Structure formats: C-alpha cells, structure tokens
C-alpha cells in the first residue's frame, strides 16, 4: 500500500501527542516503559489480540496486523513465546503507528477492496515506506527524544559516541575510551537500563544513531547478524 511521505518531525510530533493525550486521560505523567498495551486498549479503544497470525493469514514472518473496521490490532502470539518482550512491545507500538498515521489511507483502500481493510506487517516488508513510518513512530513513542538523550548522558556523558573501530583495542569493557562496533550491544543495554526503556538493544541502537548520539565511522555496518552480537 502506498502512503504519502511524512516528515520525521511530524511522525515524532504524532507520537508525543499520543503520550500527552494518554497522560491527560490517566491524570498523571508517565516515563518509560511506555504502556503501549494500555494505550491501545484504553486510550485508542482498539481491541488487542494475540493470535497465530501466520496460520490465520497463511503467511510467514508476520509480526502483527491492524484491521481498521474491526478496530483490532493483532500481534503474532509467537512473539509471546520467544521471551523477547522488547520486540513484542515494539510491534504493539508499530501497530499504533499504523492506526495513528495510516488508518485513513487503509480505509480508502478498503472501500474498493475489502481485502485491504487492514495492514499485515511482515519482516520482509520492513523497508516499505508505510512500514518504515510505523517503525519510526514506534521508536519515537517508546524512546522519546528527551528521555533517550537523558538516559544516554547518564551512561555515556554529554558528547556523542563516535565509533572508529570494529573491535576494541583495550578489551570489551572500554566503552567510553574506545567505543567500537563490537561493544555496541553493551552500550544499548546500558542506555535501556538507565532510562527504563522496554525495547530491544537493536531498537535502542537504531534510535541512538537516529538522534546522532552514536556515530559509526567504520565501514562495518552495525547489524545483529554478526555472531559476536547474537552471542550477547
């Protein structure tokens, strides 16, 4: 499904707007971890369901789906099994992103084709603009800029971490002296801990790079497929 380009600032503004409105509803401010399931059910008044979506939809690698007319967000129940709460929470936030940013477009598409009255989110489609926008929304919702910068500063100081090497010259614990590709899972984990973020290390590192707090000057691409990262 094609959607118009939305500037990052507007996506961030939408995510912060959801947090502000949710806070108004519950009557107090919140800090991470952001209660995405409660936002879905009580603030958006959308049904939340955990289902075997791969079997239901006959597709592989499905993470979640949002059905507009049914006011329903479905999360693949397999995400409950693999103990990756960060990924589950991110998928919930991603589907909120579709609900907030895209439901009008999905509704329009659904008028001509009932099959399109929803959006199914698959790993293989993550680079599509509609999926990228929902991912960025999720990152802004779960890791608001202000809180993320504060948490980063607690762990790493006020300067951005510049990664010059793939492997540490001093050993794996020298995060501040010699931040390197090999160490970034530690950096992400420490920022998550400092800010109380309930997200995966991968999501945090992407957010840190997006905010310019982590700068990778090596030719090596940061990715979880590396064996040394998976091992951690």
């Amino acid at each position, binding site marked *: 499904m094609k959607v118009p380009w939305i500037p990052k600032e507007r996506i961030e503004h939408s995510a912060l707007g959801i947090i502000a409105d949710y806070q108004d509803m519950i009557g107090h401010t919140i800090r991470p971890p952001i209660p995405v*399931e409660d936002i879905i*059910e*009580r603030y958006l008044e959308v*049904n939340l*369901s*955990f*289902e*075997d979506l791969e079997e239901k939809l006959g597709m592989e690698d499905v993470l979640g789906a949002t059905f507009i007319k049914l006011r329903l967000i479905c999360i693949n*129940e397999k995400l*409950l099994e693999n103990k990756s709460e960060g990924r589950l929470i991110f998928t919930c936030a991603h589907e909120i992103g579709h609900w907030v940013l895209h439901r009008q477009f999905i509704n329009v598409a659904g008028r001509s084709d009932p099959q399109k009255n929803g959006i199914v989110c698959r790993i293989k489609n993550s680079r599509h603009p509609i999926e990228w926008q929902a991912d960025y929304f999720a990152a802004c919702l779960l890791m608001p800029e202000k809180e993320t910068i504060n948490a980063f500063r607690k762990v790493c100081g006020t300067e951005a971490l510049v990664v010059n090497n793939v492997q540490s010259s001093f050993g794996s614990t020298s995060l501040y002296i010699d931040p390197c590709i090999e160490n970034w899972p530690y950096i992400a984990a420490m920022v998550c801990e400092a800010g109380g973020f309930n997200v995966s290390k991968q999501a945090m590192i992407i957010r840190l790079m997006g905010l310019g707090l982590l700068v990778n000057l090596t030719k090596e691409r940061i990715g979880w497929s590396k064996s040394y990262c998976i091992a951690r």
Partner: protein
Amino acid sequence: MNKTFGETVKNLRIKAGIGLRELARIIDKSAGYLSDVENGRVPPPSEAIILEIAKALEVDKSELLIVARKVDPELSEYVAQQPQAADFLRMAKNQEFSDNDWERLTQLAKFTKLGKGWNEEK
C-alpha cells in the same frame, strides 16, 4: 444482546486497568490462551480459573460464572453433600420453575427465615 464471557472479561479487565498479559500472568495462563478466551475462540475456562479471574479483577465471581454458564464450585459441593437440595432442584427442573417462581420462593424463605443465616445477611 447479552455479552459473551470473553467480552465480559475483556471489559472488566480494561475497566480494572489490567493488561491482557498481566492478567494472564496472575492466573498463570498464557496471554495467547487468555486472548483466545476474550475473543471467543475457545470456550470459557474451568470454574477454578474463572474464580481466579474474578479475584484478580476484584469482581463478583457470580457475574463471571453466570455469563460462562458455570456453577460456583461451592454450590456444586453443597448440592453434592445435601441430597435433598439435589432432589429439590430436580423437582424445580421437572416443574419448570419460572423466574417468578424462584423469586416467590426466595421471598418465602426470607419471610419464614428458613435456615440460620438470615440475621447475618444485610
């Protein structure tokens, strides 16, 4: 239209501000199973689990048991231990007691103070 058991649990859970995964943890069931229950993909759970759900949500167990068309285990046990109670219920069934009949019977029991517990009730 009457709400199903799943809809009732979902409404009460959201009203109580308890997440689906949180309630599943409290009653020691998987979130996938509880989601199936709430959405009517599986039948209501056993009486024991319904009582746990009622306790977690701090709601009257009767409300959930009735909508699930289940009998409170305490009542089942009482009937099992009181053959006359079973006989009476069987008679009521055979005579096709109406809602009005049950109401009149309740009033009669109250009026004649059958049993010992009336002074304790408000």
